[in-house]
């Protein structure tokens, strides 16, 4: 009697195991097959052309002013001299120097087509607006910093030194009213036209025509962000490899697609959890009754 019981136990255990294992396998497959998020016609963005940038950092200054951001002083306390994006600096121009080559690079939030930060944010503090801009809402934010963990470009910054820190990142001037006027502070300030603001689809066309007109100028004739990480709203062109400029090699889909694909497959309309719950309840009910009976005997 005892052995049959035990054998049954292990058999059921194994069956349950197979079931649990099969579910995510199926879902991983459907996650990849799931349609990628499209770039919408009305999405606005920016095109940064590193070959036109002279590194004057006018955009940095304009950004700080428009958003009322504090300075990060150099050791002498004279200049605003941030060395990286931070909770005080939403955009930055850096210089890359290689053996033969040299290039400036302006960094900021990419306003991804399929943003990992938005997908992860548990309380809808980060939202992708209808115009493609990714904004942050102070009332909703928990400060969990999952957005920082998720963003493939390490963009969101948290104010670790504040009692109640905020997430700081570029909101494409949606937060300061400039975007409503169809402008951004940095593109306005740029003296060479290295930063262009506009509808993303138009920017891609502009970029393609630049590539056509200037063969051999652009690295791999590539527009970084056209497809990378599922596409980004801020697009890059440069004369040097993008990974040298801190723009990582990413697959042509966002990690959010995989994550949400798995999540949706398992929890679609909550059908699976409810069915499993009913099954569990029946099993538990029968087993509890059985054991009650046994005790009575």
């Amino acid at each position, binding site marked *: 009697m005892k052995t049959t019981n035990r054998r049954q136990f292990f058999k059921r255990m194994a069956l349950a195991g197979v079931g649990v294992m099969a579910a995510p396998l199926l879902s*991983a497959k459907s996650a990849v097959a799931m349609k990628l998020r499209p770039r919408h016609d009305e999405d606005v963005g920016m095109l940064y052309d590193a070959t036109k940038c002279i590194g004057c950092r006018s955009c940095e200054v304009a950004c700080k002013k428009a958003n009322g951001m504090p300075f990060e002083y150099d050791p002498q306390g004279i200049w605003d001299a941030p060395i990286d994006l931070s909770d005080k600096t939403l955009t930055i121009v850096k210089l890359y120097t290689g053996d033969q080559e040299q290039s400036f690079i302006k960094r900021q939030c990419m306003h991804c087509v399929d943003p990992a930060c938005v997908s992860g944010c548990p309380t809808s503090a980060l939202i992708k607006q209808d115009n493609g801009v990714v904004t942050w809402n102070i009332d909703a934010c928990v400060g969990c910093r999952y957005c920082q963990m998720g963003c493939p470009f390490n963009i969101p910054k948290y104010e670790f030194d504040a009692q109640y820190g905020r997430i700081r990142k570029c909101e494409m001037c949606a937060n300061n009213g400039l975007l409503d006027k169809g402008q951004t502070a940095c593109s306005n300030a740029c003296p060479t036209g290295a930063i262009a603001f506009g509808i993303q689809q138009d920017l891609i066309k502009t970029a393609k025509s630049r590539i056509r007109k200037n063969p051999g100028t652009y690295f791999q004739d590539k527009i970084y962000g056209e497809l990378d990480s599922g596409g980004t709203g801020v697009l890059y062109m440069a004369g040097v490899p993008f990974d040298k400029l801190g723009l990582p090699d990413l697959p042509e889909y966002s990690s959010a697609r995989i994550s949400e694909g798995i999540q*949706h497959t398992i929890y679609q309309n909550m059908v699976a959890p409810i069915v499993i719950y009913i099954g569990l309840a029946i099993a538990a009910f029968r087993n509890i009754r059985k054991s009650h009976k046994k005790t009575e005997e």
Partner: protein
Amino acid sequence: MAHVNAKPLGGKILTPSVILMLFVAGAGIYFLFVRYIYGIGAVSNLSNYMPWGIWKVINVIVGAALVCGGYACAFTVYLFNQGHYHRYVRPALLISLLGYSFAGFSLFYDVGRYWGLFNFLIPKYWQGNSVLFEVGLCVMTYIGVLSLEIAPAIIEKFSHVEGRLRVVLDKLYAFLDRFLFLIISLGILLPTMHQSGLGGLAVVMGQKISPLWQSPLISLHHLISCMAMGYGCVIVTEMLVSHDYKETQHMEILSQLAKVMFMIMFVFLVLRMSEVLRSGAMALAFKGNLDSISFWTEMLLMVGGLWCVRNDQVRMKPNNIFLGSCLIMAAGSLYRLNVYIIGFHPVPGVTYFPSVPELSISLGMVCLQLIFFIMIIKTFPIIAKERR
């Protein structure tokens, strides 16, 4: 058989070890004050590149997995009708309840805008795509479910009261007993959801996590390993709080639990290895850097734990299953640490090691949890005692 006679252990609460733990907890609480006044940056080594540290990873993610005993027990006892494991249910549930409550509490000092945690309950802020949202909601509900599961023990404690309260308590007891199956099945469903979710959190981090750990199956890896850790936790607790295992009859039951733990952990090992081989990440294990060292340590702990409980014979020796359980719990914990801290590379060259205050808070909270556990098993009927 199903009936278990649980009794309070009684005895002095302020033993020397408890006093020591109180000191550690005190240090942690002191630094908690500092954290609340001056912010997270003042006490921790967290940075914008390493925004999740030991608070989230050890106190929440590892913590929740280590206390999975309630889940593992409910699974065995009620789903597979293995009534003779019944005596482990209450201690396991208590540990789960404490562990989850502390994990929940840890979030209140880990997140920066803690009052915002209540946004999880406000529908307009809900975000169904977010794994973290799902995990958060599941954990909150599960804490409630665990309280219901443990409530009979509390009611039994007040068995001597008379009058109106008696009637109410009896009704409540009968009610809980009748709907036990609904509560229990929630107690199985919810951990399945959030334990896999605790791994699912990593998916969106994409290639920031080393391919040695990142995988589309990472939720499954977390789910399976947490079950083994849960059984380990049940075995270790039982052997620490009661000496019944010195009798062969009890040892047999424990060794069967160890067998289940062995099988589950073995499945985990096979899954992990096949995934590492499939994704071609194996080369990274021979780089000789921290990642590879940590990977092999994890594997060693796992294989060592499995070895300790490899067959029925060795499983009859208390030392073996105790050590095996500890090693398997350590392996599962290191696995989680590897996913979220050691294998997490937002940009090359970023390192993180917790600061002293950060460690004090983590450790202090663990001690506080143990103190609570000791206090409760000494005053409430949690532990089954036979012929003693």
